[in-house]
């Protein structure tokens, strides 16, 4: 009797698809002159409430931090923090990013992915600040973003223990003032 190979092949296909997906979203670290910079396609922040705010023609400030760790969850050896102002061109339907500096830089006519990548490219950790990490041993990185919205932070809330409060909290897009996210990845070595 002829048996289907599908049950045996399916886990393999699934594993390949999964690894391809993870590979596409993986964090990569590369050297740029005397600095280390990071690419993290899965580390997205132009979404949800900030995106809605941008599409309303308003700007959003984002603070990005790149930290170097000797191992996962350990204390930071070096870090760099930069602030950016994002906006969405209502007529061009493209994003713009401004970095207050120093030195001040900006870029416009970007897709959301390109705008996020541009911000990450500005986060450069000097190799000298990392000591022996990367050469003598592996290191880990921690990427954080914090989106600030002074308006949202100043508005009083009516409490979350009411059903209405819970429904509001679940149905409303999260307030930008509360948005923070972090990822850790590694181990890496400097090539």
């Amino acid at each position, binding site marked *: 009797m002829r048996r289907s190979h599908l049950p045996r092949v399916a886990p393999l296909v699934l594993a390949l698809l999964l690894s391809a997906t993870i590979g596409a979203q993986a964090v990569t670290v590369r050297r740029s002159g005397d600095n280390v910079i990071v690419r993290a396609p899965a580390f997205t922040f132009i979404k949800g409430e900030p995106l809605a705010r941008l599409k*309303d*023609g*308003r*700007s959003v400030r984002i603070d990005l931090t790149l930290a170097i760790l000797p191992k996962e969850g350990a204390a930071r050896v070096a870090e760099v923090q930069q602030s950016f102002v994002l906006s*969405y061109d209502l007529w061009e339907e493209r994003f713009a990013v401004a970095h207050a500096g120093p030195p001040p830089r900006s870029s416009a006519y970007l897709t959301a992915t390109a705008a996020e990548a541009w911000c990450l490219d500005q986060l450069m950790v000097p190799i000298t600040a990392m000591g022996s990490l990367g050469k003598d041993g592996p290191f880990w990185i921690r990427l954080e973003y914090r989106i600030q919205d*002074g308006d949202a932070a100043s508005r009083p809330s009516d409490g979350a*223990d009411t*059903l209405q*409060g819970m429904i509001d909290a679940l149905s409303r897009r999260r307030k930008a003032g509360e948005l923070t996210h972090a990822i850790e990845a590694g181990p890496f070595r400097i090539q």
Partner: protein
Amino acid sequence: MKTFLLIVAMIAASVAPAFAQQTDPPEGTRISSAQVSGFELGKLSPGLQEQIGKLTGTPLNRQELRDLAARIEAEQPRHVAAIRVTADPDGTARVVFVVARMRDPEQQGNINTKYVVEEVRVRGVSQSAIDMQLRDDITALVGKPLDAEQAEKLETRLRAAFPDYEVSRRSVRGSEPGKINLIFELQRKERSRWLRFEPIEANGTYHSDQGWGSYVEMPIGGRNIRVTPLFAIDTTDDLLEEYSGLGLRFEARKLGTERLGLSLEGTWFNQNWREQTFFALALNPTVPGLYSERSTFTPMVSFAITPQLRISGGVSIAELEPLETLIPLPHGTMANVAIGSIGYNFKQRDSGGARHTVDAAFTLRAGTSSLESDYDYTRSLGQAEYLFGHKGHNVLVSGMGGVINGDAPMFERFALGDARTLRGWDKFQISPIGGNRMFHATVEYRFKWVQAFADTGSVWSDGTERKVRASAGFGLLAGPVYMNLGIPLNTDDLRAVFMMGLRFKGPGFKKY
């Protein structure tokens, strides 16, 4: 139905649509309160806090207020402060410093500042309601490149001018490339509405003596109309019956005017009864018997005298399917009542940042043969609750009392000893068929996740001995999740009752 609609139309016609116009209080008016909104008062310097606090009781001096607003801005350079002075009905003036964060200088990097503002719209309030100076400043944005910082300041000023509204701002494309329209949207805050929707209740409860039960209301709708499906599964937390079933409530809170509202509710519940209730009923044949199904239709009309005070009236038509037992329903199957209710709700945040909430309601239900009711009775219930909250500390004091005259069906009889009242006692032990007299009081203290409480109360029937019971306990409360241990106090039977579950409760009491 025609008669009902006629009543609604008459009430609607009698309501004056015009609202009292507020006038600016003159200089020298006594200040009844001075508050800071949108910013934590404690973050200002003690001297400035004191100066603001000292305004209460003094004559209104706008220059002094401007100086204080300037001091707030000097202390908090990333914020702007606007002054709002409102006249109270008693001839005094309320002062609010509306403080809002300014656009961060770095946020000036908005690419849309290259576009020219074609039009500015303010939605949600009539143009005539906006102060002329503010209107002029808004109009001044037209024809110039978008000034995001100025737009932010105007948004803050609109917030100060309309403290009962949520203000938001957005830009959209204009009629031709290179032009944009700026829109300020104002939406009434819930607390400033004349009528509130029926308080939403949803809970899933475990009581170590009474078991599991849940009651869920799921409101759907907008600001003026709401439809609420409701579901009950083995619920015993409010009545003597354990009921399961479903219902639907329709509410409209703007019938021509925001002062007039309507609700229609239909419910269909099946009942289970505890053994203790059967035994107690056998010993008390005068108490109306049990039923296996209860279907109710309740149309109500509400009218707000003030945003805090409302009256409601309507009828409840209930049909009871007798339970097939040795003790049949002696009174028949219809339990129709006329309902009248008055409710009061008050919420305030004082200058020290403390929240004060008062809720009170009195409800009268009367079953008479003129409504084709087989039950002739009146049921009066008064409830009051005060909640004080400050920096994570909350104190709740509540009380209620009720009287039934005549023979009311079982779902109307009072019961205490569940997850909300006399916590630590079991109602099926202390009064398995309830009573026609009741009072109850609670004091509860909460600090963040921890709570402690003390309950006292009694439920009895007219002409029988009244025994006052007390209990105390403690627990954890994390948002809607709670876990309590209640211990009965004045008893030799030392035991504890464990209660846990999820509870969402809207503000206010049910009106009927």
